């Protein structure tokens, strides 16, 4: 793997490393700066470990003012900045550059305000996703987006990547659950956007900031919507002899007017690995397994599961099991949520994240098998079926020469396939480094130009998370064009 080119470092900046470290210590204090080699190594990559670069230094401010001081300094000195939450990005979104400073917000993890009456929580953005729900759980409230990495990932990272999760079929993704942010721009300016109220004044800047992959600023605080949890929830498992039948079952459930909280799909290889890991009691004789969860009172849950079962029965399922206890429910979800880790125990893998229209599921799964077979690789498929978000886990042996490259090539073919059936390159992991060079598969030159102009509004010098999201050529062309415009236009006009 590692065929994607990272930008070459600026030797002049790298040569100033020691003085930059000294400056950061002055700005934030010695205990906030990591500059030794071992310390820096912990920040040289994220969960896309094939790509790694040693950053100049890491700074972990404890306050918004600290972040502001560092960004102001970076801007004044033309130093690139890699914003970092917990570094759980599967797309290389947090892989630093050798001429960049990593600015991490993990020390800023306090709950600032919980307001059940107005249904929001205001938190520092370095808090983990799960800690928000934990902070409001005693009152039976929760924060809805639930990425698989929720025990570790930060809200700041969720906001940067617009993270989803298994339960967003009903509750939406990050962008649907964030009401406001405090963001530090690359100029060091602190901007408050949104708040406790439900909609924005003026343009919907929140919509642009959520999912901007750390390229618009560093979010240090956020106001998120908290929701009252349902009275109860219970999953059922339905196994089919083919993924086609499972796909039809999902379509019929949704068309019937029931929207479960989650509809998860696993193919046979995924079932086997997850069962070995979690002992969840997954049926082993099926080709495709659906985990469907509904919410409500005991009676409502029973009614809804019975209704879903009646739809499934028309398709002759090979297995249909309703969870009999909270313990069993927990195991069923543990198996699904630890799928990536479970597969990681038996093989290196490359986790893809395309989204497809549900109707294309059987065709896409067939093609994925064919693509992987062509490269001599195995694949397991996890699918947020309700919203079409597909995670093929392409397995390879990192020690076998050339196999990682094959996995990367197979992955790119799979994502092109997702786009070709009307889907997209990434449903919830983000573009990051991994899918940067595939952007032109989905977007035209104009589509990209529109996005690059928005980036320039926030960060015209491209200091924040450079080298990600867009093909480097497109970025360079945009920078050159802006520079030409700046030199050609008289200053007063440029300011207007």
């Amino acid at each position, binding site marked *: 793997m590692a065929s994607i080119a990272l930008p070459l470092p600026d030797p002049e900046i790298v040569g100033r490393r020691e003085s930059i470290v000294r400056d950061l210590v002055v700005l934030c204090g010695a205990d906030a700066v990591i500059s030794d080699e071992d310390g820096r190594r912990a920040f040289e990559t994220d969960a896309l470990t094939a790509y790694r670069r040693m950053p100049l230094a890491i700074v972990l401010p404890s306050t918004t003012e600290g972040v502001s001081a560092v960004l102001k300094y970076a801007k004044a000195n033309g130093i690139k900045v890699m914003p970092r939450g917990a570094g759980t990005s599967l797309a290389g979104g947090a892989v630093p550059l050798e001429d960049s400073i990593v600015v991490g917000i993990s020390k800023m993890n306090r709950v600032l305000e919980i307001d059940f*009456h107005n249904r929001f929580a205001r938190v520092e953005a370095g808090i983990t996703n799960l800690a928000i729900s934990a902070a409001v759980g005693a009152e039976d409230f929760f924060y809805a987006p639930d990425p698989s990495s929720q025990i570790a990932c930060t809200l700041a990272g969720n906001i940067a990547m617009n993270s989803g999760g298994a339960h967003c079929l009903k509750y939406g993704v990050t962008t649907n659950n964030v009401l406001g942010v405090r963001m530090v721009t690359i100029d060091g300016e602190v901007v408050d956007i949104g708040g406790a109220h439900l909609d924005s004044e003026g343009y919907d800047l929140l919509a642009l900031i959520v999912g901007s992959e750390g390229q618009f600023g560093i979010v240090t605080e956020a106001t998120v919507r908290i929701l009252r949890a*349902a009275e109860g929830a219970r999953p059922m498992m339905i196994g089919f002899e083919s993924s086609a039948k499972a796909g039809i079952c999902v379509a019929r459930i949704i068309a019937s007017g029931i929207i479960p909280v989650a509809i998860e799909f696993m193919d046979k290889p995924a079932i086997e690995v997850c069962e070995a890991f979690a002992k969840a009691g997954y049926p082993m004789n099926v080709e495709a397994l659906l985990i469907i969860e509904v919410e409500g009172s005991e009676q409502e849950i029973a009614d809804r599961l019975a209704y879903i079962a009646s739809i499934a029965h028309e398709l002759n399922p090979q297995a249909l099991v309703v969870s009999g206890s909270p313990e069993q429910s927990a195991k069923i979800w543990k198996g699904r949520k630890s799928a990536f880790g479970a597969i990681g125990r038996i093989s290196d893998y490359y986790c893809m994240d395309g989204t497809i229209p549900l109707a294309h599921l059987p065709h896409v799964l067939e093609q994925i098998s064919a693509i992987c077979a062509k490269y001599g690789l195995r694949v397991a498929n996890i699918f947020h079926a309700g919203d079409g978000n597909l995670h093929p886990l392409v397995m390879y042996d990192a020690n076998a020469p050339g196999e990682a490259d094959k996995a990367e090539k197979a992955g790119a073919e799979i994502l092109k396939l997702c786009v070709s059936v009307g889907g997209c390159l990434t449903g919830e992991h983000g573009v990051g480094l991994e899918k940067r060079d595939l952007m032109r598969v989905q977007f035209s030159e104009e589509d990209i130009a529109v996005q690059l102009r928005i980036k320039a509004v926030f960060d015209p010098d491209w200091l924040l998370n450079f080298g990600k999201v867009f093909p480097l050529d497109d970025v360079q062309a945009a920078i050159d064009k802006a520079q030409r415009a700046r030199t050609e236009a008289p200053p007063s006009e440029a300011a207007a």
Partner: protein
Amino acid sequence: MSDIMRPATEWELKSMMTALSERSIPVEILGAGSKRGVGRPVVAPVVLTTGAMRGISLYEPAELVMSARAGTPLSQVEVELASRGQMLPFEPIDLGPMLGTGAGQQTIGAVFAANLSGSRRISAGAARDYLLGVRGVNGHAEIFKSGGRVMKNVTGYDVARGLAGSWGTLAVLSEVTFKVLPLPDDVLTLVYPDLTDDLAVEMMSLALTEPYEVSGTVHLAPALVSRLTHKTLSKEKRSVTAIRLENFTRSISYRKQRLRNALRAYGEPIELDLESSLAFWGDMRALSFFPPNGTHVWRISTAPSMAASLVASVRRHMKVEAYYDWSGGLIWLETPASADAGSADIRRAVATHGGHATLIRADETVRRTVEVFQPLGPAVDRITRGLKQAFDPMNILNPGRMYASL
């Protein structure tokens, strides 16, 4: 008299926009024009309407997704959805009756361009939350797309959602793709009469802390109640506070009992059945209790717990009638005709309570003199102007509609 352009296709739209941008000719962008009276008056020699770009281009009920050309009437979209037992979950309001442009006129593109969400916002989300993708033409006369037709998509920046609520000042939408949901099987409304604003907000917020998926919480002043088209409630001489449940019939009867129990301190509710509920919430969607009568109407967004106090502080300066939606998080305020529409007092009240205010209904002369949209702080203003410049460098799209010189 303005020239009127009516592109029928995206390519026609692009060629018209090319001609306009090359000569920096300002253009007023309209769908059906039902909300033309919202915002600062646009001065432009050309009007461009999306009304000839119409038709549903994709509908997959089993995938909960629809695409429609921007000029498709909302009514057509809703009829098509209803035929398959589905709906727009965000329940877009209709400003037409209030603005005197008639009910049921607006286009689907304009619903998203104005980010119009109704009472179900509290449980289902806003219009922008359902917007999956757009196609359009910007001030550079470039055709561009963002997002797509799938539910989960984080490929590139979320430009589509960023255009929601930009009132045609950044781009002309040619097509929108959005998520839809099943219609509820049954609807029931609990109506609590005669609560004060304070108590009503308290009760509405309490209802949302219960696990029964309340999908509407509104409170109307007595004067507004008497203007309802709803046959029985319009005879109430008191304020009404309404709580909506939408679900399967069996769930509703269970949840209703639990909810009544939780809210028993607030009195005995009147129950509205399915038909009566639909009539009542239809009134809320059409805001039909604000008939064109010469008064001004403000829309104020704030934290629910601030709502009653905010209204009371405005009331010290003028006679107002308040309609609270979103448990108080959204206030519609009718204020007497005056030269500044009460702007100074309302903006001061909003500043002390938090949130923002938009003057939705006022004469052109008033809208020319007072800020219609919430004035922006310096940092947000700078970003806003940067975005305008990025999308529309010649400042030709609805110039000045949201903010002066923008």
